[in-house]
């Protein structure tokens, strides 16, 4: 097996992950709107229909409640379905199935029923799709016991998270930020599965901890570079798992740096950033040398116009300013 790395993209990495899963386990199949003939709204499943056929690459009618419910039912009955909801914005139509059935059945049935389904959704803003197509609702789903949430932010995670998610006996939701699909990266041809329970320190540092996930990671890494030129050494933590949160890594980092900035594309009120801030106050109050800073989207329906959307979203400059504020302030 050659060890030379393969140039690929986030999108192709996810496609390869699905192909590998279906080759290894006949219980695995893909279901969603336009995943087959059209090749996937974001071309993630391009070519899979030709390789695996319509039985395992199933285009569905526009009935999110039905096909997500069907995915849950098939999982109950022994399959390992991958259900693709085109975007998190349409997942609102399937909330009843996800929350009242998928997340609840195991506990409510006293452990008899388990729902090994993986639900993938594209998330986030930044492509001028306006309010109804730009939501970041990870905070909502992060509120629900009974499901697990993953946010692959790197090509390696896009390639390695799916297989362990499919092995998990409980529902796993995977949020793929829309801007990440074309992101280039290199991978070993036989890339191994990755851990899906821990956060990752993407850049070690000592003066302030920058906590983020998914589509915001590239902006945070850029902000970290800029801060480094001014003598501030930030530590960047990529959450990777949004539920259950990896308190150990998060708290461990802030205990070292004594300062925290959380970058989250969701709206600040009741967001994932709000939950993480609460955990920092609960678990390292006496390590905080300044209040936790949150860089979130402005609390507005995402506007279409580019300059407005940019003003609403967290940006490198606002991340740098927040970090400076907590370090020197």
């Amino acid at each position: 097996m050659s060890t030379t790395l393969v140039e690929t993209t986030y999108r192709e990495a996810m496609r390869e992950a699905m192909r590998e899963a279906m080759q290894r386990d006949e219980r695995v199949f893909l279901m969603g709107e336009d995943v087959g003939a059209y090749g996937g709204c974001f071309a993630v499943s391009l070519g899979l229909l030709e390789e695996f056929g319509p039985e395992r690459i199933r285009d569905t009618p526009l009935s999110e409640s039905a096909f997500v419910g069907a995915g849950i039912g098939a999982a109950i009955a022994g399959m390992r379905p991958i259900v693709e909801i085109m975007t998190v914005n349409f997942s609102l139509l399937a909330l009843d199935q996800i929350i009242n059935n998928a997340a609840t059945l195991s506990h409510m049935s006293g452990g008899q029923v388990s729902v090994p389904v993986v639900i993938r959704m594209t998330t986030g803003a930044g492509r001028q799709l306006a309010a109804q197509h730009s939501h970041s609702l990870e905070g909502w789903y992060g509120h629900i016991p009974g499901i697990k949430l993953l946010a692959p932010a790197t090509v390696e995670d896009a390639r390695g998270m799916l297989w362990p998610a499919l092995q998990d006996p409980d529902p796993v939701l995977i949020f793929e930020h829309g801007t990440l699909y074309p992101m280039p990266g290199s991978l070993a041809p036989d890339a191994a599965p990755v851990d899906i329970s821990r956060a990752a320190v993407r850049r070690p540092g000592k003066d302030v901890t920058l906590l983020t996930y998914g589509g915001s990671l590239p902006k945070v890494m850029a902000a970290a570079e800029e801060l480094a030129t001014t003598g501030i050494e930030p530590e960047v933590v990529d959450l990777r798992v949004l539920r259950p949160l990896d308190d150990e890594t998060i708290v461990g980092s802030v205990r070292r740096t004594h300062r925290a900035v959380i970058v989250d594309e969701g709206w600040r009120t009741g967001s994932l950033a709000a939950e993480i801030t609460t955990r920092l106050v609960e678990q390292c109050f006496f390590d905080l040398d300044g209040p936790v800073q949150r860089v979130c989207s402005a609390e507005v329906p995402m506007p279409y116009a580019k300059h407005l959307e940019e003003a609403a979203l967290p940006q490198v400059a606002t991340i740098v300013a927040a970090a400076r504020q907590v370090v020197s302030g």
Partner: protein
Amino acid sequence: MSDFTMPSLGADMDSGTIVEWLVKPGDHVQRGAPMAVVDTDKAAVEIETFQSGVVGDLLVEPGQRVDVGTPLATMLAAGEAPSAAPVSVGKAKRPRARRVPPPREAAAPVPPAVPREAEVAAAAPPAPSPPLRHHAAELGVDLASVTGTGTHGRITRRDVDAAAHRPRVSPYARRLAEELGVDLAAVTGTGTSGTVRAEDVRAAAHARPEVPPVSTEAPRSDRATIAALMSRSKREIPHYYVATTVDMHTVVSWLRDTNRDRSVAERIVPAAALLRAVALAARRMPQLNGFWVDGVFVPGEDVHVGVAISVRRGALVAPALRHAADLELPVLMQALRDLVGRARSGRLTRAELADPTLTVTDLGDQGVEEVFGVIQPPQVALVGIGRLVERPWAVDGLLGVRPLVRLSLSGDHRATDGYTGARFLATIDDLLQHPEAL
């Protein structure tokens, strides 16, 4: 015989009211037959019997609200005779004592509740005393924002002082200060609006003197150690000296009045009043209450007045009367007696022997009128007190005999200058003119 009880018709229903009976005693009813109409908060509903049989006594009258489970009527098996008294339809009989709990008002009258201690304490804490209000105003502290730590929530002087020095401190800085033994009140914050940050605390910690290890076993410093200490003081500390005469008339007469109705054990000697005045003055002028270390003045965390005590056989020790500025005069007196007693019997604590923040030498009892002492390093001030003497003294232009005492200050010119020393003595003099406030 069995009961027909008020059924529960929903998770949130815990009582119901009989609107109308649909049966009368003696009626034969089949299982499932409607017995009465019950009104719950939402609507009127027919309730049914789960047994067939003969209706006995109707125990609850229409219009009466009863809890779920309360017996509404008795049911007789077929053939059983209903109770003797025929009952008109619709009017429920008085509930028989045996089955229905006695109505509540019949219970023994409850004695009027005596306000327990807790209720009294819950009343508003006693109003702060006038001098305290004055003290708070002086330090710019809003008493409403201060929570008293005295009995019944009384605000004490210490509470006010603490409130005056409440800088904003980050939690990490507060923890660090505790670990490094740094007095936060003395740290100036460099964060926004004066917030004390971690590096401020670290800076303060580096500047703090290493407290010389003092063993409690050596209560008496022998001549050699005293000699070494005194020569180091003279060698390193550029002393300046200032002195003044204080009219002790007000203090002495006040003491005579208060001592008259005090038992011997509680009597207060002038020396205690003097010590109290020095302590209060030191709190007002913190530049004299601390240490000179590596070229930097480090203020003491509180006022601990070292009291020079001659301990038999010529030895000398100057243990600290700790937190002297917080000890009201009578309390300070007892503390002083206790301190001197323990100094003489060698039972001083480590804290008392650790450096006092300034020292007082009272040689009045030894007969000298004026003392110019040597500062105990690393302190920056020493107050000398002479003998209380009756002397001719001009008061408002008239000549009179007044009890006078000579106060002196030896100051470390690196930390303060004569101007500050003089103001310090003047402050002590002024405090001694208001003995009731000591």
